[in-house]
């Protein structure tokens, strides 16, 4: 046999952002990396303590990568044990008493669920969901016995406590199980044997024709609740402890099992509650097993939503705390200003435009040619350029050009007015024009012009700096960590010496890493999700439309990134595609319904492409009010099946004449935008 090589980079560093997937982080590392999301506005209405001790079940809802798994795992027993180690006496019992809750984490693996469903699908439908219930109960019991072992082991009189618990337990379950337990190991053996039988059935018995016949088919809580009661009633101080079943990736469960869990949520027990992690409402049912009762937020459960559109300041504070914590745990990268010291804060758009233009005026020429009178008269155009140009500030001179082409006055007069406003603004002379200029320069067109200038010189807008990364991450912790990780890896590869010396990363390297991450993430997700090709086409087409808006030489709709469509007009398949795209955060629906676009006085859902994909299209990561691109149902359908990007910019603001009335009222038909 070939000897296997264990390739280690001799000259490597430990990237502090390498651990980005909560699924594979060990409990001790998870605790070390934990930055509580409960103290920010990330999860409104819940403190960390309330999240753990609230008796009403809680559905933790958030987009992919927002930290649901991290939060649920943080509440799990394995991480509680790590917290206990960090206390003065290291006592698990004291920690349980103090925290008043113990959680057990269950992740709904697609592969396990698919095969479990498949294996037991040969059984009658009324019973096969019961097998899952039996399996979940056994798993829950197995976790509970681990807690009992640990707590008894710590106690002053283990044997006595064990007997107390067993006496209590046997009194409750002897009639159900028809036998009693003599010691804790008996419970372990009982649970292990039953689980082993399920494994054996799935792996071996299925090859024969034998039916599934476990020793006993348990209902949820038939054994687990007596175990909990025995523990809580036998060990002083545990009486008000809550035991949490933490179910992650709820949407992976089939509808039957979702209904079963919902029923358990609706009728949860005194000492047992649920925390359910799910991505969005669209892909999970709220029905229970009896098909007449549904879960209601506030009645049967509380919804804890990880905020989608958190304020930028909150996002920055939270991400900075995450990054700086990781950096502080790293021995390789220690910058006194943390992540901002390494990446820089904001993009220098003036400098970026300067390095693109390099003193050239082609961009002014192209923009001014948008005005027909200047397009025909090269001499006047040249004269205008001479007036408005500002070699040291391409953004300012481009604003001047926009003022000229938008003015109905003589171009030379308009150019002089623009020049004068620019000079007043830079000289800090306060007047109406300089105030307008200030708004255009500092806010309205700054980013849009940088994208426009880059595109006119066949360059891509660069993305770099902490501020841009926070924008691109858009509240998604995993995206933020992944981008930081990619940047530091690239810095180590492309500019190792300067990186190790200065602990800063050049904007070129940041931009390259961000762009590569963006396109790779897009391709990776599209390749593994349901309707991946439909979603890939849709996003590429929508992105191309946004690019068209960003390259508009008249900059009429600066930084347009949002779009609207009427979901009701889509057929089922297309709605399913949209649901999956949303659940995987490929497109994001804004939290609140809003006016669908400037000039349209109707409310609807507004969407945007995941900000992490903005670098693919070279578009803005910011949200600007005003115009949102409207897509008809036909356009949405077409965009899902092929790369055929509709021309939207040229039609923006034009009245769409209704064609044959199809009996369905449209949200958009006959509407005109006033922004044309």
């Amino acid at each position, binding site marked *: *046999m070939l000897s296997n*090589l264990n*390739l280690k980079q001799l000259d490597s560093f430990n990237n502090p952002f390498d651990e980005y997937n909560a699924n594979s982080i060990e409990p001790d590392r998870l605790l070390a990396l934990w930055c509580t999301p409960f103290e920010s506005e990330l999860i409104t209405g819940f403190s960390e303590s309330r999240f753990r001790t609230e008796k009403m079940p809680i559905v933790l809802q958030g987009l992919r990568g927002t930290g649901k798994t991290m939060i649920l795992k943080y509440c799990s027993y394995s991480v509680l044990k790590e917290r206990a180690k960090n206390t003065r006496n290291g006592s698990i019992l004291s920690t349980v008493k103090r925290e008043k809750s113990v959680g057990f984490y269950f992740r709904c693996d697609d592969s*396990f669920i698919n*095969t479990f469903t498949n294996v037991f699908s040969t059984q009658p439908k009324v019973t096969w969901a019961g097998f899952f219930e039996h399996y979940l109960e056994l*798993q829950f019991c197995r*976790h509970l016995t681990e807690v009992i072992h640990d707590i008894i082991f710590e106690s002053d009189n283990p044997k006595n406590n064990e007997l107390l618990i067993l006496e209590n337990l046997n009194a409750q379950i002897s009639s159900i199980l028809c036998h009693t337990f003599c010691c804790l190991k008996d419970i372990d053996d009982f649970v292990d044997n039953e689980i082993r039988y399920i494994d054996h059935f799935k792996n071996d018995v299925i090859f024969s024709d034998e039916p599934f016949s476990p020793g006993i088919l348990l209902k949820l809580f038939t054994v687990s609740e007596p175990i909990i009661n025995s523990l809580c009633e036998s060990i002083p101080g545990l009486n008000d402890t809550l035991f949490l079943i933490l179910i992650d990736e709820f949407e992976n469960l089939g509808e039957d099992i979702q209904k079963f869990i919902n029923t358990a949520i609706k009728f949860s027990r005194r000492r047992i509650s649920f925390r359910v992690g799910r991505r969005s409402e669209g892909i999970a049912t709220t029905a229970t097993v009896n098909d007449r009762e549904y879960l209601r937020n506030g009645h049967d459960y509380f919804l804890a939503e990880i905020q989608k559109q958190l304020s930028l300041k909150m996002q920055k504070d939270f991400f900075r705390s995450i990054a700086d914590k990781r950096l502080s745990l790293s021995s390789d990268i220690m910058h006194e200003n943390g992540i901002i010291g390494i990446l820089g804060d904001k993009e220098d758009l003036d400098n970026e435009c300067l390095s693109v233009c390099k003193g050239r005026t082609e961009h002014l020429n192209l923009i001014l040619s948008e005005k027909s009178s200047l397009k025909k008269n090269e001499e006047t155009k040249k004269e205008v350029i001479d007036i408005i140009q500002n070699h040291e500030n391409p953004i300012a001179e481009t604003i001047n050009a926009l003022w000229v082409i938008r003015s109905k006055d003589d171009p030379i007069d308009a150019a002089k007015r623009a020049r004068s406003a620019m000079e007043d603004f830079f000289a800090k002379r306060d007047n109406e024009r300089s105030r307008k200029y200030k708004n255009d320069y500092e806010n309205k067109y700054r980013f849009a012009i940088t994208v426009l200038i880059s595109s006119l010189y066949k360059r891509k807008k660069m993305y770099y700096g902490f501020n841009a990364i926070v924008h691109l991450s858009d509240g998604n912790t995993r995206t933020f960590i992944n981008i930081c990780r990619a940047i530091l890896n690239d810095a180590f590869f492309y500019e190792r010496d300067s990186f190790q010396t200065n602990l800063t990363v050049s904007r070129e390297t940041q931009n390259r890493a961000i762009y590569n991450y963006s396109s790779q993430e897009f391709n*990776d997700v599209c390749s*593994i999700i349901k309707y991946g090709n439909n979603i890939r086409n849709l996003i590429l087409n929508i992105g191309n439309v946004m690019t068209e808006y960003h390259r508009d030489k008249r900059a009429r709709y600066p930084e347009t990134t949002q779009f609207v469509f009427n979901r009701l007009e889509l057929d089922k398949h297309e709605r399913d595609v949209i649901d999956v795209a949303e659940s995987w955060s490929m497109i994001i629906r804004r939290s609140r319904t809003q006016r669908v676009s400037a000039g349209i006085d109707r409310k609807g859902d507004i969407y945007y492409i995941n900000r992490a994909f903005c670098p693919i299209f070279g578009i803005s990561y910011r949200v600007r009010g005003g115009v949102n691109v409207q897509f008809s149902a036909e356009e949405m359908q077409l965009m899902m099946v092929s790369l055929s990007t509709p021309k939207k910019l040229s039609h923006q603001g034009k009245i769409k004449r209704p064609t044959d009335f199809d009996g369905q009222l449209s949200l958009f038909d006959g509407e005109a935008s006033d922004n044309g």
Partner: protein
Amino acid sequence: MDNCQLYQMDVLSDIEVCGDIVFVFAPSNEDRAMKTFDEYIQKASIHSIVAIKYPGVVIPDRILQRVSPDRVHIISITDSPVDFLISLKKMPEEYGSKRIFVDISCIRIPEMFTLIKYLKTKMGISSLGILYSVPYDYVFSQEPFTSYHSYLGDLDMYELLGFGGTTNTQDPDLYIFLGFEESLALKVFEDCKHKELKLVNNLPSFSIKYKDICAINNYQLVKQSSDAFFTPADNPFETYNFLDQMIDKTSPVCIAPLSTKPIALGVCLFAIDNDFVRVVYPVSKQYNQNTTMNTYNTFFYQIIF
């Protein structure tokens, strides 16, 4: 040395297949699908044929010229893995007493695993002849690095039927045997909770470039792990030995055999011998019918259970 066993692996042209055999294979549009049947099995007396029929595949008429129609057992593949098992159970029990040869060239990995386990556990066979035709090349629709696509549409993750491993409270180590398509590996990585990730490439691979194609296409995952492991692409027994050496049998393990069929065969044999091993695989409803070109040679592996 008590637990050592020599393995038998030959190029099929060097050996003679004789006796009354049950021949199991999956006809397909690939050249190599019928290679063994047409060229090597001619000399043998075929008792029965089991043809695994994937959607869109036509069973060639010429197989009926070798045996009477009542000795041809066709198993149609559906979306449900359990349907395949139900079909296997309809095979006559007498097959268990015959020499069984399985040409795994065009049998997809999920069916291959279930089939072999079924033959061993239900049919009670003690040995099995496995045939595998190495493709001369794979079909790269564009440039020969990233344009290989074996499937169309969406992927669903499954534990392979009969290979669910044992339930454990610890997270398993995840072994991914790398293939040409990162989407498969990413799907596994995304779905399977794990403690440590171990990536295994082919060395030697069928062609020198193939191991590089695997590395290039799995770049995102390769970046996650500084450990690189290798097994020969054509040798299931070395795959078995590799797993036997690497895996601590007291800890849970999950394996995704996304690489060549012989490597998957090695994983299958190891998992049959070690019931704590969980094997997972991403499955699509639609596959490309032609992913290989011609045949380089055909291996014969003698499996003794």
